[in-house]
Structure formats: structure tokens, C-alpha cells
């Protein structure tokens, strides 16, 4: 502990001035004093108490100090000479421990007491420490002052006990945590960030920007664990050794930085009897409930708001000084903006970007430059902005936002930034494109100039698609799509033809484009697709998210982690929602065969959970109706215990394999249709597909299993198996097409697997086999399967590979407690009159 140091100001004609005592030698406290001095240097005799044993410095620059980009001397705001020259007494390293409002004195730790006429509390905030076991071990630090930085630097210097790189775990992926992580990693530590929420800096960034940030930090070698909940900090000999997450993962650590949030430092004020809620309550002149006591900075609560950034403090300090020098102006609250101080990462956010009613999102993504920009406009005013990768216009947007300026005139060009929007004629993006010279390169991927594109359009390409196929412009990454569209509009006016339907209104890409690009560009997550393919909405919609989730699952089996929030309710709950909000449960009955044990288990569930109905479905199995979402896991546990798994009656996936009795019993049966049906169902269950998929196996051409209206149908004949595809018995009945005839069961199974895989890889999401085949033609399907000799083998192998990861019963996981929150209420509210 450093000894208290103090130096009195030089000439101070005591007695003539009011005595102003300031508690807190931080950013707000000193700024307030500076503002007062600027207005009336002779009014107060000032004494400042600071808990830290040093002069006032720029706290926000601790991050660059940690990163080695600045030294402490660089960040000092007021040197010792400043205090002296202005006649200020600084008592540093001696925190105030009590305020006696009656006598108007403050008492410091050393016992020193100081009378005041006016008191200013500027104690800032305390870092919040999660009270997990081990939080008090040596090596667990916060990130608030220079001492914390020194502790981190010492840990980085020391390295790991085995002499290797030191390991740091930073708990909290907000602004402070990420700046700490960045500094420590520049100092040579191996850094893991543990963040509770699924995206980083979730309070400042939307999902898209949070994802870009995560990807960049990972590229730089940090490990980012989102959705990580700290359970315990482990230690040895009183020093931290590891962090254990609630899911059991253990992260070795030589230092742990807790950066999970701050709390206004209100202890002193509360003990002195001032009005305190979350912060010390102040009015518009920064006066507390005691007129002699002012408060400013992070420790205050003004009109319900507490702030954690410096910009609002500057505004508060101005109002405070105006009041303290007899010219009250008033503080009306601040709009804040955030920037992350990590070198090489440009990130800015301000205002409210939650979108919603009347609010309109304008999104611009430039994947080649790694740029994501989103501005939110409401009633012709800018209300929010998130910028990643290019923040040059941050202050311009922030200014528009704070002033609430009407932006209708620059609306079209707003997203392109100040240079464009204030360029008069250029405010119209079409005009900006028109102004480009003919040799300006539009499509960087394929090197196509504006002149070449216009030429192509004049020669008859009158849609985006035609331009793409005839001169390759915008055919690769697509980032110039907007420019090409402008050229079409400029050249053809109203004669531009719209191309094939896009996935949804969030993009101009078609399903085929998206599927192709996912594979070509190795896109592996939904936010990555949205960024790389320039989605025009921040997080997609209810149409594209499920489609993208499926395309990723299909493209990267075993690697892609299913995104539950992009799934329709039935697939999230693994049961079918009913009109009254309850669910129906259909266990698998392989090939339609059941047993006394299965039937008994089903009967027991019906009785135990009071299911109002159990019904034989059109798919040869039993459907239990009216199960509440809370009871689903228990129902599944009971069915699992009897050996039954999910029937996926709810999924864009394999539904049923309907069979007839076949050669085993039927006098006409030619092959074992029941046995083959069971084998096929065992091979195909669990697979996710573009739409639902139904199979049937009939033992002879009488076709009792209705195989010729199924997605894949087998009709057994004396000489083997006729394989049929593309049938549908639903809204629009379509009989199957005969695909081929094979001699053995094994071949039938291979063709079935190959056909499903071809459908999985090529069809559009929500397109069943019948419309798919109508669209692409049976010949296309036959060519895909039979034109190259081993196509069936390769497709079937890909299907079986992906099935390795799909065939785990989703019910078993839920019954074991996974995603329990999906089935539980938050709580139940029981108003008093209902408590008996």
C-alpha cells in the first residue's frame, strides 16, 4: 500500500473563499473542478481526495497502457504542477471514509478531516465481482485502475509455472473485457474470453456485428467462449489455477480478469443518508438530496439513468459548474455512443438499433472489405447506428442522431456516408453510378468494367441474371449487385426484368445461388452468410433463417452446430404444436410394426399424462394428443425407456416408411416388403431434408402401401424392386415417376440413399420431391444418379456420413435435461387473491 501523499497549493488566501471538497480524483471530479476554474477561478478553495495514490489520469487510456501503446506519463491529465498552480490541495492515497453532513466535514482513512461549504462526490464505480467460489483468490483481478493494469502486466511477465506462455481468462465479453483480452494477448498471454451471452458486446452490437467481431478476435488467436457460464474459480496455495464453467469445462489460468460490469460507488453517500437508488440521485444541476452536496460522474443517477462512459460526464460537469458559479443551465441527459479501442478493429455503435415499428433498417455489407453498416431510421430521423470495419462516418451519424435532424433528403444515400449523402446530385446512388467513368471497375472478382456491363445490357441482357451469365459481373461474390442493378436501371429504365425469385426479401440471391456460395466460399454460420452475401436485413427473417440453417446442416455435416432459434416451433420442440398450444407426440413405429411392449408404453403415457386422444395416423403409427410443453421431456423419457424414439412427425425430415405385409404373410407378396421397409427406415430416420419425406414399400403391384404417391416408393416384383420417386398424396396429388429397377435389396437401399442425398443437396428449402422434380425434370435426376458410373455410390456414402451425426434421438437429449428452459415457464404469478 502506498503511503498517503499530499501537497498543499501555493498561495491560498484562506478564509475568503468558499471551501469546495471533492471526493474522487478521477475523470469527473477533476473535470468538474476544471470547469469551475474556467468560469470563476477565485470562488472556491478546493481540496480533492483521491483513493488512488497518484494524480488524475485518463482512465479510458488504461487499455492502450495495458496493450503497450502508451505509458502512464502519456495519459496523465493533470500533473502535480496543475494542482499547485491552481491552488488545489490534493490528498491522494487517502480515501474518504465518512461524511458528516451535520458538521459539514469529511473524514479520511488517515483520520484527517476536512470541513466543506460545498461537497462534490465523484467516486465513480466499483467493478462488479461475481461471487462464485474462488473469486477472492490471488490472481483474480478487475480492470479499473492503474494498479489493476500493473497486476496484469506482472502476470504476463511471469508466464505459466512451466515457463510457457501465461494463460489469462477474461470473464466478460463487453467493452472492458475485450480491451483487457486484447492487451493481454499483445503482452504475449494466451487469452480465453468467457462470455455469458451468445454474442459479444450484446448491449452495443447486434448479432451480425458481434459475430464479425468474434471471428476477427479468433483469427487473432484468442479463444472466445460465448454462452459460457462461470461456475467456480479454482486455486492452489491461495493463487488461481483455473476457471471451471458450469458445463464442466476447465480453463487453466494464471490470471483471471473479471470484467462483467460496474456498479456506481454509492457507499459513502448512502451511509451519509443521501437519497440513493442505483446511483446517487441528482437533479438537473447535479445537486443531491442535500443542497450542499453535489455529485457527478458514474456514481450518479440522473432522470433514471446511470452512465458508464465519459461523454455524459463532460455534459454533467458543464451543468454542475454553471450551477456552482451561479449561472445554472441544467443537464438533460445524454445519448451515448461506443467505440472499441482494439487496434485494427473499427467498431462503433450508438442509439437504439432494436428496429421495430415504423423503424426501418438500412443495411450495407461489403464482404470484401469486411464492412457491416446498419442505420435505423424512424419517422425520417436517425435513431441508431452500428458500424463494423469502417467507422469513418460514426461521428457524422452520431451528430445526426443527437440533433434529431430530418434526413428525408439524404435518405437514399445515408448508408453510404457523409461524402455521398452531402454530395448533392450524388445523393441518388444511380446518379453516383452514372457519374463513374466507363473504365471504372464494377465487379472486382471478375474484372468487369462499367463500360463492359452497359455494353452487355445494350446487347439484350435485361435482367441481373442475364448480366451475370453473359459478362460474369456480380456472378461471384455478389458485392457489386447493387451497382449492376443501378446500371440496369440507368440503361433500361422500366424495362429491367426481374430475375428468378430470391430466397426472401432480405436478399437478391436465389436458393441455388445461396447453396452454391455456401460451398464455394465455405460459409459456416448464419451471420457469416448474411455478411458475405450482403443480406439487407440485420438478422434475416422467419423465411430465410430456417432455410440457411438447413443448407448449412446439409453442407457441413458433423461440423455445423444447429441453430435452434432458426427453427420452426415443431422442430425446436420435437413435437407438433396444436391449435390450443399443446403438442402431439408420435413415437417411431418402424415400418408400421408394433409390439405389446410398445403399445403398453404408449397406453401408459396416455393415461399418466391424461392425453385427451390417441389416434392411428395415416402414416401407420400412433399419435398422442394434448401434451403440455412442460410434460414433453417426461413423456419422452417414458417412451425412451420402452425403447422408442422420436418419429419426427414434426420435421422437415424423414417421416414414415409405410409398408404392407409382403411375402411373409400375403398370398401375393413377392418380396419381404415389411423387412425392407424397416431396414430403409433404420437407414434414413433422423435425416434433415428440404421438406418432409415419405417412403413406402409395397410387396406387389397391388401396392397396398400406396408407394406410388410417396417421395420414394418401392414396388416389389418377382424379379426385384421397382423404384419410384416424386409422388405426393397431399394438396396436389402427383403419382411417382419410375426411376429404375434393381435386383437386390442392397441396390434398392443404395439408390434410396443416393436419391435422398441428391434431393438434400439440390432442392430448395420447403420444396418437396414432387415440385422439385417438376422443376428440374426427371432426366436431370436420372443424370445426377446414373450418368457417371459411381454417382450412386458417392451420393449414398455422403448420405450415410451425414447420418452418423443425425441419428441421435432428440427426445433422449431433452429427457436428459438439454434445453430445459424451452419446456419450463419463467415463473408463475399468483396474485394475492388466488393464494389459498
Amino acid at each position, binding site marked *: 500500500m502506498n503511503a498517503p501523499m499530499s501537497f498543499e497549493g501555493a498561495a491560498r488566501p484562506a478564509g475568503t473563499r468558499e471551501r469546495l471538497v471533492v471526493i474522487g480524483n478521477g475523470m469527473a471530479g477533476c473535470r468538474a473542478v476544471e470547469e469551475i476554474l474556467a468560469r470563476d477561478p477565485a470562488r472556491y478553495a478546493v481540496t480533492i481526495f483521491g483513493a488512488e495514490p497518484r494524480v488524475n489520469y485518463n482512465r479510458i487510456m488504461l487499455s492502450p497502457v495495458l496493450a503497450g501503446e502508451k505509458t502512464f506519463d502519456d495519459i496523465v491529465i493533470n500533473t502535480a504542477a496543475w494542482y499547485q498552480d491552481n491552488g488545489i490541495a490534493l490528498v491522494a492515497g487517502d480515501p474518504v471514509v465518512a461524511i458528516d453532513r451535520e458538521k459539514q466535514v469529511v473524514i479520511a482513512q488517515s483520520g484527517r478531516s476536512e470541513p466543506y461549504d460545498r461537497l462534490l462526490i465523484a467516486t465513480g464505480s466499483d467493478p462488479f465481482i461475481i461471487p462464485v467460489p474462488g473469486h477472492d483468490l490471488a490472481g483474480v483481478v478487475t480492470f479499473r485502475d492503474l494498479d489493476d493494469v500493473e497486476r496484469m502486466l506482472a502476470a504476463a511477465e511471469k508466464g505459466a509455472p512451466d515457463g510457457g506462455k501465461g494463460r489469462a481468462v477474461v470473464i466478460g465479453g463487453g467493452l472492458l473485457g475485450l480491451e483487457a483480452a486484447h492487451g493481454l494477448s499483445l503482452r504475449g498471454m494466451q487469452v480465453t474470453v468467457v462470455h455469458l451471452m451468445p454474442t459479444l458486446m450484446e448491449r452495443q452490437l447486434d448479432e451480425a456485428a458481434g459475430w464479425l467481431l468474434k471471428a476477427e478476435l479468433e483469427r487473432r488467436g484468442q479463444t472466445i467462449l460465448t454462452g459460457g457460464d462461470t461456475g467456480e474459480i479454482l486455486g492452489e496455495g491461495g493463487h488461481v489455477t483455473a476457471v471451471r464453467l458450469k458445463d464442466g469445462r476447465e480453463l487453466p489460468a494464471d490470471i483471471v480478469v473479471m470484467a462483467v460490469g460496474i456498479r456506481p460507488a454509492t457507499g459513502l453517500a448512502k451511509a451519509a443518508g443521501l437519497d440513493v437508488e442505483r446511483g446517487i440521485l441528482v437533479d438537473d444541476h447535479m445537486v443531491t438530496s442535500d443542497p450542499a452536496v453535489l455529485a457527478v460522474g458514474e456514481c450518479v443517477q440522473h432522470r433514471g439513468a446511470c452512465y458508464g462512459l465519459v461523454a455524459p460526464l463532460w455534459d454533467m460537469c458543464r451543468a454542475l459548474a454553471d450551477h456552482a458559479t451561479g449561472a445554472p443551465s441544467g443537464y438533460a441527459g445524454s445519448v451515448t455512443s461506443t467505440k472499441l479501442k482494439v487496434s485494427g478493429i473499427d467498431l462503433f455503435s450508438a442509439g437504439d438499433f432494436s428496429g421495430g*415499428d415504423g423503424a426501418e433498417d438500412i443495411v450495407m455489407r461489403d464482404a470484401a472489405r469486411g464492412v457491416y453498416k446498419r442505420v435505423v431510421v424512424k419517422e425520417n430521423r436517425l435513431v441508431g447506428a452500428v458500424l463494423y470495419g469502417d467507422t469513418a462516418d460514426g461521428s457524422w451519424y452520431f451528430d445526426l442522431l443527437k440533433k434529431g435532424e430530418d434526413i428525408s433528403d439524404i435518405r437514399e444515400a445515408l448508408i453510404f456516408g457523409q461524402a455521398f449523402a452531402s454530395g448533392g446530385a450524388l445523393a441518388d446512388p444511380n446518379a453516383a453510378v452514372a457519374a463513374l467513368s466507363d473504365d471504372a471497375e464494377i465487379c472486382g472478382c471478375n474484372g468487369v468494367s462499367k463500360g463492359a456491363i452497359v455494353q452487355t445490357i445494350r446487347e439484350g441482357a435485361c435482367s441481373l441474371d442475364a448480366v451475370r451469365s453473359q459478362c460474369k459481373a456480380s456472378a461471384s461474390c455478389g458485392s457489386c449487385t447493387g451497382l449492376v442493378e443501378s446500371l440496369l436501371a440507368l440503361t433500361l429504365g422500366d424495362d429491367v426484368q426481374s430475375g428468378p425469385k430470391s430466397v426472401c426479401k432480405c436478399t437478391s440471391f436465389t436458393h441455388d445461388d445461396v447453396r452454391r456460395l455456401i460451398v464455394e466460399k465455405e460459409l459456416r454460420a448464419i451471420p457469416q452468410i448474411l455478411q458475405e452475401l450482403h443480406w439487407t436485413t440485420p438478422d434475416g427473417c422467419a423465411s430465410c433463417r430456417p432455410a440457411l440453417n438447413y443448407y448449412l446442416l446439409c453442407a457441413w455435416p458433423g461440423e455445423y452446430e444447429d441453430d435452434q432459434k432458426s427453427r420452426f416451433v*415443431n422442430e425446436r420442440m420435437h413435437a407438433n404444436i396444436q391449435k390450443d*398450444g399443446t403438442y402431439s407426440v408420435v413415437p417411431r413405429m418402424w415400418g408400421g410394426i408394433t409390439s405389446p411392449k410398445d403399445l403398453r408404453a404408449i397406453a401408459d403415457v396416455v393415461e399418466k399424462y391424461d392425453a385427451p386422444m390417441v389416434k392411428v395416423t395415416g402414416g401407420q403409427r400412433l399419435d398422442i394428443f394434448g401434451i403440455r410443453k412442460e410434460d414433453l421431456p417426461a413423456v419422452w423419457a417414458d417412451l425412451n425407456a420402452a425403447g422408442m424414439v422420436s418419429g419426427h412427425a414434426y420435421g422437415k425430415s424423414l417421416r414414415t416408411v409405410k409398408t404392407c405385409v409382403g411375402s411373409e404373410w400375403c398370398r401375393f407378396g413377392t418380396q419381404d416388403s415389411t423387412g425392407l421397409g424397416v431396414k430403409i427406415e433404420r437407414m434414413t430416420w433422423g435425416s434433415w431434408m428440404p421438406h418432409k419425406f415419405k417412403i413406402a414399400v409395397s410387396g406387389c403391384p397391388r401396392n397396398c402401401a400406396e408407394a406410388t404417391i410417396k417421395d420414394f416408393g418401392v414396388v416389389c416384383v418377382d424379379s426385384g424392386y421397382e423404384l419410384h420417386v416424386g409422388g405426393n398424396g397431399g394438396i396436389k396429388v402427383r403419382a411417382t415417376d419410375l426411376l429404375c429397377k434393381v435386383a437386390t435389396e442392397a441396390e434398392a437401399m443404395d439408390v434410396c440413399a443416393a436419391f435422398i442425398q441428391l434431393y438434400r443437396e439440390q432442392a430448395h428449402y420447403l420444396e418437396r420431391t414432387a415440385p422439385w422434380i417438376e422443376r428440374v425434370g426427371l432426366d436431370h435426376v436420372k443424370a445426377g444418379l446414373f450418368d457417371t458410373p459411381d454417382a450412386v455410390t458417392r451420393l449414398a456414402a455422403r448420405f450415410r456420413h451425414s447420418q452418423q451425426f443425425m441419428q441421435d434421438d432428440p427426445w433422449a437429449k431433452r429427457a436428459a435435461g438439454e434445453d430445459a428452459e424451452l419446456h*419450463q415457464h419463467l415463473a408463475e404469478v399468483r396474485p394475492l387473491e388466488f393464494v389459498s
Partner: protein
Amino acid sequence: MIGNWLDIGPVDQIAPGNARTLPVRGGAEIAVFHTLDGNFYALVNACPHKQGPLSQGIVHGTVVTCPLHNWNISLKTGEALGDDKGCVPTIPLKVDAGRIYLLREAVVGRRAA
């Protein structure tokens, strides 16, 4: 806003993009949503169309798509968007120091239909 606020627990109980439910004895069940932007909203858990459980819909932006017939409902106003007409009551909600609060009067004052 003045009134009694009901503390319904920490924000991390609801993952972004998800919703959870709060049954009310003698009243209408409430759905509490967490959007991908990190904001929270509460609505009566019944679609204005045919009372579909909105808590089970896909959340995008500040809109939830009803799981029964795909109406899009604004989380901010409870209003049906697009060509559909109807409105579900919203429940005033605030987040303070990592906890979610609902306006008590709006929660218990509402009788089930």
C-alpha cells in the same frame, strides 16, 4: 413510469432470439421475448388471430412470427403487421441491473378471456 414492478429474474434466463412464458393465476399467460439485439419485450402469449402461443414463434428483428398461421406480430406494439389486422396487449417491461421487471398492474390486472 410509476407503478409496482414485478421482478421476474435475471436476463440470462432467456437466450437471445428466444422467448419464455409466465403463467398468471386467474389471468392471461405472458410471453417474454429477448431479441437478437439484446432487447426485451413482453406480450400476452396469445396471437390476435386465433390465440396461437406467440412465445413459440421465430423471433426476427422486433417481430415474432406466430407458430400457428405465420402472422407477424410486432413485439413493440403487439400489432399485427402487413395485411393482417389485430393487436395483442403489451406488458410494460424494464431491465435494471441485469434483472427483468414487468409492470405489476399490467400483469395481474388482466383477466383471462
